[in-house]
């Protein structure tokens, strides 16, 4: 097993920062999953891929756009028509999917080294993320488990709401340090803790 090296290392400053005198507004962390896998179904094969996600990861996806299931160990969500992101704490998920998803059904792409997973949690999580992304973060239109694809300037992001006040963001690894720095600046106003 190769030791993971975080792109955030040079800017990683654990502890409380910004205006936290009246309490911490958001907790920022890197979840470092062992596997981040993208699955794409050919048109008409979406249900077969959803079935494979259940078989391999044990995660049941609800039907519909952006539907997802959160979990501490494994999580999955739809982020585009017929496309899904599946995340596992452990390594080896891509190999398991490559065996379970035939090329006639869809494709498997291992993004474990291509994405950085950032968790934004706390009472002001919606407020801080709304500074970056022009999407509706209210729980009514963005329920727990659901996924969204959106963009902050050139930084493409896939976001899953994993708890009422918690979001997991998947950004390109090469943009992660820049995005993290911006995230810290945007969080200073409400007080933030890196942990």
């Amino acid at each position: 097993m190769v030791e993971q090296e975080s792109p955030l290392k040079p800017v990683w400053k654990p502890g409380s920062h910004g205006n936290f005198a009246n309490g911490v507004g958001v907790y920022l962390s890197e979840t470092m999953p062992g596997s981040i896998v993208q699955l794409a179904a050919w048109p008409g094969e979406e249900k077969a891929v959803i079935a494979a996600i259940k078989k391999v990861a044990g995660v049941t996806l609800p039907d519909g756009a952006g539907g997802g299931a959160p979990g501490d160990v494994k999580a999955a969500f739809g982020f585009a028509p017929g496309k899904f992101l599946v995340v596992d704490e452990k390594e080896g998920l891509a190999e398991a999917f490559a065996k379970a998803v035939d090329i006639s059904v869809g494709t498997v792409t291992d993004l474990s080294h291509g994405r950085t997973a950032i968790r934004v949690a706390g009472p002001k999580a919606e407020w801080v993320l709304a500074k970056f992304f022009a999407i509706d973060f209210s729980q009514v239109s963005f329920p727990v488990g659901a996924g969204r694809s959106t963009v902050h300037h050139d930084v493409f992001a896939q976001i899953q709401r994993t708890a009422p006040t918690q979001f997991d963001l998947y950004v390109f690894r090469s943009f992660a340090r820049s995005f993290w720095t911006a995230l810290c600046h945007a969080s200073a106003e409400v007080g933030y803790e890196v942990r």
Partner: protein
Amino acid sequence: MLITCPYCGPRDVSEYSYQGDGNRTRPDPASTDQEAWNAYVYDRLNPRGEHHEIWQHSGGCRAHLKVTRNTLTHVISSVGFARDAGHRKSDGHRKTGAEA
């Protein structure tokens, strides 16, 4: 301007890339019909009013969309996936996204 992506819902125009006039029919790649290629590359309806367009949700689900936009008011009256491109007159050669 907001475009309501059939997958993602209403999103700001900054998440989209314009992919051009949606009224064109691409000739068969093997065709040497100069008139047909000229029409495909240069001829535009340029209407004042409703216009069929192709947009990509490049800052979202990345799907290509067929959009009807009013060039005068920017009112968007319909949005669908371009892969369901049944609205176009087919030359009998063009494959839809599903068949291609």
